């Protein structure tokens, strides 16, 4: 692993013998990323998806929950470009609104994952000793928990508990949760399980970084722990954390879809791709188009994020590239 690329800006010698303007690590990464066609496909796809999700009310031809018993399970037509489902709801509109669910899960859940995982990993590695030991025992035990089972158990609890939660804070969370069709529960369940990986990654990085001479130097001149962590260690863990987050997004999206597929995710009529796939599976013999639309869109989205993650990893850490 080469950290030197992350620490210093690169300067290249131009043919004329003059030093080129130094570029930052992020600029370098962006230049390399732009050359990667698969990663750019991923990038463009994700940007389009974000635009679609943000402007869903404008773009969707119908409301996502508009039931039309005069037009159930229709194949694609001019009125309904991707057909209708078993309640006569427009599949395209539901997919467009479903993008909101998937993307909000990826943003919020991933953010919570980082907010838990990064500080825990950093504190564990930086302070070491018994703090590290305590934290690592907890992480080890949670790691031994089969993650899918843990998510299902936590999700079942949150789904039922958040519906009836009382009190000033819990009541507010409960209101938001019910208004969003159970999204808060999904965020929490995913975050409570997936922070482990991030914390391990950060711990490993920090263990390596804290032995560096510049940290020793900072400590010698009396810089406080807080400042060392925030100014010297945190920025140097950013690249691997960004890469891990990019790879984490497809796994939270597919886990949300999986939970909704099993009926444990968001509540109907809120459209989730996973739920639409599960409805498609039930009507697979008679109306395969229901499954194909949602299944292909979910797969393409995951593919796009994985391409982007691969590209980012190669771009930010060229030494790691094989």
């Amino acid at each position, binding site marked *: 692993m080469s950290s030197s690329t992350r620490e210093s800006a690169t300067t290249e010698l131009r043919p004329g013998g003059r030093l080129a303007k130094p570029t930052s690590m992020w600029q370098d990464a962006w230049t390399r990323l732009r050359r990667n066609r*698969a990663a750019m496909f991923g990038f463009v796809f994700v940007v389009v998806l974000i635009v679609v999700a943000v402007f869903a009310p404008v773009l969707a031809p119908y409301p996502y929950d508009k039931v039309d018993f005069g037009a159930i399970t229709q194949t694609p037509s001019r009125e309904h470009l991707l057909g209708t489902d078993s309640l006569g709801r427009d599949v395209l509109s539901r997919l467009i609104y479903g993008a909101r669910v998937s993307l909000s899960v990826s943003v919020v859940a991933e953010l919570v994952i980082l907010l838990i995982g990064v500080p825990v990993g950093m504190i564990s590695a930086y302070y070491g000793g018994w703090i590290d030991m305590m934290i690592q025992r907890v992480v*080890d*035990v949670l790691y*031994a*928990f*089969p993650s*899918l*089972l843990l998510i*299902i*158990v*936590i999700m*079942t*609890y949150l789904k*039922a*508990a958040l*519906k*009836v939660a009382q009190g000033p804070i819990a009541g507010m969370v409960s209101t938001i949760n019910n208004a969003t069709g159970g999204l808060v529960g999904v965020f929490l369940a995913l975050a409570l399980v997936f922070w482990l990986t991030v914390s391990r990654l950060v711990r490993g990085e920090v263990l390596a970084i804290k032995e560096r001479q510049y940290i020793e130097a900072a400590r010698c001149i009396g810089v406080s722990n807080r400042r060392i962590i925030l100014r010297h260690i945190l920025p140097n863990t950013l690249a691997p954390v960004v890469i891990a987050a990019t790879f984490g997004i*497809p796994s939270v999206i*597919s886990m949300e*879809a*999986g939970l909704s*597929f*099993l*009926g*444990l995710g968001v509540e109907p009529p809120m459209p989730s791709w996973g739920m639409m*796939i599960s409805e*498609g*599976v039930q009507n*697979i*013999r008679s109306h*395969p188009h229901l*499954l*194909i639309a949602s*299944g292909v869109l*979910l*797969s393409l989205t*995951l*593919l796009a994020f*994985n*391409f982007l993650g*691969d590209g980012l990893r190669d771009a930010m850490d060229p030494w790691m590239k*094989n």
Partner: protein
Amino acid sequence: MGRYLIRRLLLLVPSMLVVFTITFFLMHATPGGPWARTGRPLPKAVIENLNARYGLDKPLWEQYTSFLVGIVTRGDFGPSYSRYGRDVKDILVDFFPVSLKLGAVAMVLALVLGLSLGVLSAVKHNTWMDYVSMFLGIVGVSVPSYVVATIMIIVFAITMRWVPTGGWDGILSRRILIPAIALSLRPMALLARYTRSSVLDVLRRDYVRTARAKGLPERLVLARHAVRNAMIPIATVAGITFANVVTGSFFVESVTKVPGIGRYFVSSVSARDYPVIMGTTLLYAAIVMVMNLIVDVVYVFLDPRVRYN
């Protein structure tokens, strides 16, 4: 090594206890008990009788200890709530072997295909073969298994009629093809990606250059030096993946109607069938932990430089 092994085995006990405790209290804290019915609720007297019969009227800590004592002393998880007259043990014996067999077949497929693809793309680095297998690698990681399974059902079962749409007949029947392939895709892709980077890494080592310099045919350089050493990190990945494959069959089982424990677990969670939930969770936690332990132990034999003390 002996002391390390003993310490690791002893650590299994508190870990299992924590898993047990978390699951127990989380499940019992979840609103809606095992007798909650949608539509017409059960009469109050019936619920009270049921609670008394299964000991659910006792204080929570008493339920916790008596349940724990039952498991530790007699290996007894008690009766299932939702299947009258069936013990958790019977249910696990009925459903778990199916998941285990399906997972094992999927894992064999994943190992054979994943390792070959990975080695192939490392050896043919930056050729079209490399690009194709790495594209397969990324697709395999991206497409969810239940989507693959359903698409395969549409194509091979409904349209072509080559295989039945679902069900279970043991590992030697055609019914296993769709669930096994769908389940193997993700681990296959992961293994292919890891194998590729591991082989590429080894190919740059000095001993490979030496082997080539002394005139060893490329085939033997690969077989004797490169691939063997590249397999060491793969063992870790493969071990952990196996645990994931056996536990990860929930989705595939429900699409292909395989009567495995995954499908049963999901329904027992929504039915709040506490004993079944506890039994399944502990079983899976044990598998994951033992698998991790085996991986760490095997590592010592694969890589003589690794020493535990």
